[in-house]
């Protein structure tokens, strides 16, 4: 008979506030199998855990139930406590009397009653627990980083630094991501390219890192330590090995009218192009939508001009299958479309631009090669208006994002400061709701913009922008002066909200990683495990997990790399102990379970059985591969005879729980 201990936690007042913990402990003391029952303020504390260890020794308990917070919080903690006291870690059950009882029922009487029932259910389950030992599975010592922005590059560099091979998969022809498009970076105003390109070159030259540019992940199978990923290398019609990146073809290509997405369509490029000078890999790419040779077969100028003979019009998409131990999502962000915010006349005038477009205008490698001029008539703007929180912090309105995009206040202060510094004759107005500068040296940076460079910060939102003549009439409210002011600006810059990259949602489905309603990856725990996805083996790096600036992205990238290294350094991974197991005596061998298994963990073997009449019979029976099975339980329901059962959540245990709950 089991000797069960029951420990009811106060959790300070979180539980004790609406549940009479003493009454729960007393009520559960006379449940079948219970030999010890107590309550304590903080079961998860060191003192609490020592209390459990002592109780195990004194009453030689065979298992215990902790009535406390959600098992998703401290099941692991209490399993380690059991292990420390020499008890099998799987002889522990948790009754969730905080998130699912004390926090959701205000009335003490109701809360106590329900806590007793939940405790009774956990006791019924632990009575039927069996000691389990988790199996092991090998770890493929190789990591995959999806996304080649600063997040992906930093993660890959750190992992390679630890000696593990890494693949970076980037959809664009070059790595670099958004940071490559940025001119200067806050708060130190050093040029983005100057700090990014050395890292890109390191990544290219590091023999542990393989950059798969112009490629995308199409399928992910397997689980932590044993992912098998299908990667599609889109045809770039240029042989990467031979191309020297001289750029001759990009000058001679007759097709000139292709909108250059690197400069956000503000200028044009050729059909065969290298996105920007410091591109890695420095290899040309033919844009199949615009290349006349590929469309009509008549041209071939680039092939004639190419000294290395690297052009190959017959190149096809290449499908690769690779094995990985860990996957890092670093898909980054994009500014949202300004189309629903037409009160700012973004679509009516070329002089209303987003901040990213302003970055390109001010960048030396940008469309105006550094000349800060208006996109409409190329004249120098004398009055500029910055509009903050366009599309951010909108609630209920169907068009915007509910969250604050975090980086706009800082980059607008940077833009204002740079413009005032380079062109002192320009008047700069910034309409803000609040200026949020929470980083190191951030507020000092913002104050310099206001005090030294005389940027006019006006508290109040812009209501309307109407193009009148060759200026833009900005109508805004100045809340502190309680006036409605009108400014005839030459240029209006919208600080657009940022959203995750469109490729994130399909990737999450492939990785079975969960996402929040805004399509940002959900982290395993917002405070304690911010760089891991709940799906084991999947890690999050950079803005794909939430809006963040470059310093935070780099620190999160290194954190994700540390987690990946922590995983890859292990030879064996302890796998889930709660996996399926089939009772061979009762198995029909009908392969119903094999058909529902998402991981292909079930194989069949012919085994000899001694029959009651002393004859032996060869029967086909199912066998579960403990390392591959993830313990979902689909097979246990598909199996009509109940031969297939799930350890830790066995049929008898769940039936006992149902009986206890319904009593």
């Amino acid at each position, binding site marked *: 008979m089991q000797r069960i201990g029951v420990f009811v936690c106060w959790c300070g007042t979180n539980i004790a506030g609406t549940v009479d913990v003493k009454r729960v402990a007393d009520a559960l003391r006379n449940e079948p199998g219970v030999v010890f029952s107590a309550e304590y303020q903080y079961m998860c504390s060191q003192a609490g855990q020592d209390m459990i260890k002592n109780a195990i020794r004194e009453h030689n308990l065979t298992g215990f139930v902790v009535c406390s917070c959600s098992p998703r919080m401290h099941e692991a903690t209490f399993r380690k406590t059991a292990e420390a006291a020499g008890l099998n870690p799987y002889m522990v059950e948790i009754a969730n009397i905080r998130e699912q009882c004390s926090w959701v029922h205000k009335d003490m009487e109701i809360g106590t009653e329900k806590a007793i029932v939940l405790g009774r259910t956990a006791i019924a389950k632990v009575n039927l627990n069996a000691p389990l030992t988790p199996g092991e599975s090998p770890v493929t010592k190789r990591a995959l980083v999806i996304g080649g922005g600063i997040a992906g590059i930093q993660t890959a560099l750190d992992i390679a630094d630890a000696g593990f091979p890494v693949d970076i998969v980037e959809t664009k022809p070059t790595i670099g991501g958004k940071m490559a498009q940025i001119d200067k970076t806050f708060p130190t105003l050093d040029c983005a390219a100057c700090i990014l390109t050395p890292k890109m070159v390191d990544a290219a030259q590091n023999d542990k890192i393989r950059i798969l540019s112009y490629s995308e992940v199409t399928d992910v199978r397997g689980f932590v330590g044993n992912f098998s990923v299908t990667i599609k290398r889109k045809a770039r019609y240029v042989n990467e090995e031979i191309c020297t990146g001289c750029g001759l073809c990009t000058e001679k290509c007759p097709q000139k009218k292709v909108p250059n997405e690197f400069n956000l369509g503000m200028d044009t490029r050729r059909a065969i192009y290298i996105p920007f000078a410091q591109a890695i890999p420095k290899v040309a790419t033919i844009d199949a939508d615009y290349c006349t040779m590929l469309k009509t077969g008549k041209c071939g100028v680039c092939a004639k001009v190419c000294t290395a003979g690297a052009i190959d019009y017959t190149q096809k998409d290449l499908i690769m299958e690779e094995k990985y131990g860990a996957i890092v999502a670093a898909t980054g962000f994009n500014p949202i479309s300004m189309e629903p915010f037409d009160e700012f006349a973004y679509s009516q005038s070329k002089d209303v631009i987003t901040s990213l477009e302003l970055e390109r205008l001010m960048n030396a490698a940008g469309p105006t090669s550094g000349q800060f001029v208006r996109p409409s008539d190329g004249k120098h703007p004398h009055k500029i208006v910055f509009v903050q929180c366009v599309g951010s912090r909108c609630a209920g309105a169907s068009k915007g994002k509910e969250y604050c995009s975090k980086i706009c206040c800082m980059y607008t202060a940077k833009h204002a400061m740079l413009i005032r510094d380079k062109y002192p004759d320009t008047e700069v107005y910034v309409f803000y709701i609040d200026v949020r500068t929470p980083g190191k040296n951030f507020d000092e940076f913002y104050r310099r913009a206001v005090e030294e460079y005389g940027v006019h910060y006006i508290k109040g939102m812009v*209501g309307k922008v109407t193009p009148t003549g060759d200026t833009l009439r900005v109508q805004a409210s100045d809340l502190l002066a309680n006036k*409605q002011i009108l400014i005839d600006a030459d240029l209006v810059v919208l600080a657009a909200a940022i959203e995750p990259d469109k490729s994130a949602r399909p990737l999450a489905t492939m990785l079975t990683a969960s996402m929040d309603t805004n399509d940002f990856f959900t982290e395993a725990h917002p405070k304690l495990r911010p760089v891991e996805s709940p799906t084991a083996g999947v890690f999050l790096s950079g803005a794909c997990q939430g809006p963040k600036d470059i310093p935070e992205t780099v620190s999160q990238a290194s954190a994700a790399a540390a987690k990946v290294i922590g995983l890859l350094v292990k030879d064996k991974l302890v796998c889930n102990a709660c996996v399926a197991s089939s009772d061979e005596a009762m198995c029909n061998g009908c392969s119903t379970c094999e058909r529902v298994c998402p991981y292909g963990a079930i194989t069949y073997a012919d085994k000899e059985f001694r029959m009651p009449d002393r004859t032996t019979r060869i029967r086909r029976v199912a066998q579960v591969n403990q390392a591959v099975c993830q313990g979902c339980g689909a097979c246990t329901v598909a199996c009509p005879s109940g031969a297939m059962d799930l350890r830790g959540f066995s049929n008898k245990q769940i039936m006992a729980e149902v009986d206890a709950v319904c009593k």
Partner: protein
Amino acid sequence: MTHSDRLKEQILRTSGVNPLKCMRCGKCSATCPSYDEMEYHPHQFVYMVETGDIEPLMKSESLYKCLTCFACVDRCPRSVEPAKLVEAVRLAVIREKGGNRLHTDDIPAKLDDDMPQQALVSALRKYSK
């Protein structure tokens, strides 16, 4: 429940607006076409109803300057709907004894040829009950 609490509760109930959602961005006042004629501007309506400071609103002329063009409702990022608050305060005034601002018998005096019929109908709706 003081008199202004009761008033505030009545205004919030008739308008269905939750002023707590306002993040004080001022966009409603920025887009308000009759901002200059109004003594209290839309963002102030939201703030003053929230703080319960309703007496001055009821006495002010700006109640009748609001064109109910709903630009503020359309553009408010937090969908607070300030125009409905102005309407609710107006109703609070009209509902008090003798609160009607426009009597049917003084309509003929206001008639002029280019006054659209609809303006009269909406005036009657807004200014008398």
